[in-house]
């Protein structure tokens, strides 16, 4: 890791100040002020659920975009001297695009569970908070899985385009690797649906 002295210095100063502040609170009997439970309770479950939707869509789209870019430029470059690869390699782009669609689907599924509630009873409020956390988890799962899946499919697709330009029998074999790569995005989708199942916010 090539970090400069400035960034190392800033990081150490930050860590030092945090330790100092924490010790001050603890040793002066004001430790109760550092209340994680209060912090979590004061964030509304809507906040968690909607951030979940944002992560689901944005990270999936980021993964798909990186993948499509990586594959697209290789198809362009390889297609100059070997024009026959242009149409066949669009399959790689479609597989990257599928990753973004998973994110879209989960975004819609999660937003379907968000409804308003009026109750103030703690035992029912607990269920609303649970729903918020479940939707956040679902969004984070599908977002991160699709991010890595999209990048992976894109890099393999880039290799497939260049190999196809040299030797057309290689394309189908590398496509099998891409199919395995896009399966991991599907895993994220499945787990995310299981997580968001039963997240009921209505009274």
């Amino acid at each position, binding site marked *: 890791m090539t970090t400069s002295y400035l960034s190392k210095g800033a990081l150490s100063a930050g860590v030092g100040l945090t330790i100092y502040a924490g010790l001050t609170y603890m040793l002066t009997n004001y430790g109760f002020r550092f209340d994680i439970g209060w912090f979590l309770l004061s964030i509304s479950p809507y906040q968690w659920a909607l951030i979940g939707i944002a992560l689901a869509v944005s990270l999936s789209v980021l993964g798909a975009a990186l993948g499509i870019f990586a594959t697209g430029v*290789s*198809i362009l*470059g390889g297609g100059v001297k*070997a024009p026959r690869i242009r149409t066949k390699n669009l399959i790689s782009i479609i597989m990257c695009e599928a990753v973004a669609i998973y994110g879209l689907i989960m975004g819609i599924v999660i937003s379907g569970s968000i409804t308003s509630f009026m109750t103030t009873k703690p035992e029912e409020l607990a269920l609303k908070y649970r729903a918020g956390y479940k939707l956040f988890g679902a969004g984070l799962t599908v977002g991160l899985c699709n991010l890595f899946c999209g*990048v992976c499919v894109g*890099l393999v697709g*880039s290799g497939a385009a260049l190999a196809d330009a*040299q030797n057309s029998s290689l394309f189908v074999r590398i496509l099998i690797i891409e199919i395995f790569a896009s399966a991991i995005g599907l895993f994220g989708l499945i787990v995310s649906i299981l997580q968001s199942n039963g997240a009921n916010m209505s009274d």
Partner: protein
Amino acid sequence: MKEDLVFNLDHGYAEGLCRGFRSGILKSTDYHNLVQCETLEDLRLHLQSTDYGNFLSNESNPLTVNVIDDRLREKIVQEFQHLRNISYEPLSTFLDYITYAYMIDNIVLLITGTLHQRAIGDLLPRCHPLGSFEQLGAITVADTPAQLYTAVLVDTPLAPYFIDCISEHDLDELNVEIIRSTLYKAYLEDFYNFCKSLGGVTAEVMCEILAFEADRRAFMITINSFDTGLTQDDRAKLYPTCGHLHPDGLQELRRTDNYEGVRDVASRYPQYKVLFDGSGTNTGDKTIEDRFFEHEVKLNMNAFLRQFHFGIFYAYLKLKEQENRNIIWIAECISQKHRARIDNYIPIF
């Protein structure tokens, strides 16, 4: 690993294009067809069916080997300049480094030509186009290396390489060769350090290729200096230090006096032992230069086995140059009707 993720953002198109160019390199079947040609017209016909296409179609009859050489060089210069034009940093700096070697050759060509009283108008067309820079024509006015530096080279990218060469001696035949070797040594070490600073796969691939180039120069300088007046210490100042031979092998090479001594030094390094064992100085054996060319071709071919690095651009240029040398060798054998050694080209595929 993270440079694999972002390599395609800036350099993906250039890499795809370079690999496309590489697939046009002549294969062994093409060479079989070329060695069976009877005349240069047959050669032109066979080249039309390869990636070269109609590059010779506008030439008037009779076709000469010099014309073929010029057209081949023009084609490779065009491809390289296109790659340079579409590249981003740091690829553009990398490609610029490759052109410095040709600048050094051009400078030495012009100085030698001036010493032999040739006109500047004759010499400039013979310069390699990849190594041209604005002050190229002004080289002929200088008499000593110091003048050359202060008047011409101080604004060019070659300025830092010239520090070791500045002296008040006049430029004459032997000095010019020493200047060439000193410039090339400084250039090679600078290029090696640049590739190392790029890191990743580029550093792995390029440093191996450049280390071999440094060792090859050390061997060739030693072998070629045996009957000249070059002292051992002067010779040692010309050895590039970025190869595998540094520091022990270079010390040994400094003290050798004959070809057997060089062979002994090489036998301590397994990769060079193999090269020297397969060669000899009798007629009918492969010379050591041929073995070095073969090894270079092998290293350049291996560069294409990995993706997401800059080594393929360097390797492509060197392979195309080797292919040009092969075609010119075959063309010379055909035009002089001396077909005994026509198979002595270096096969690439």
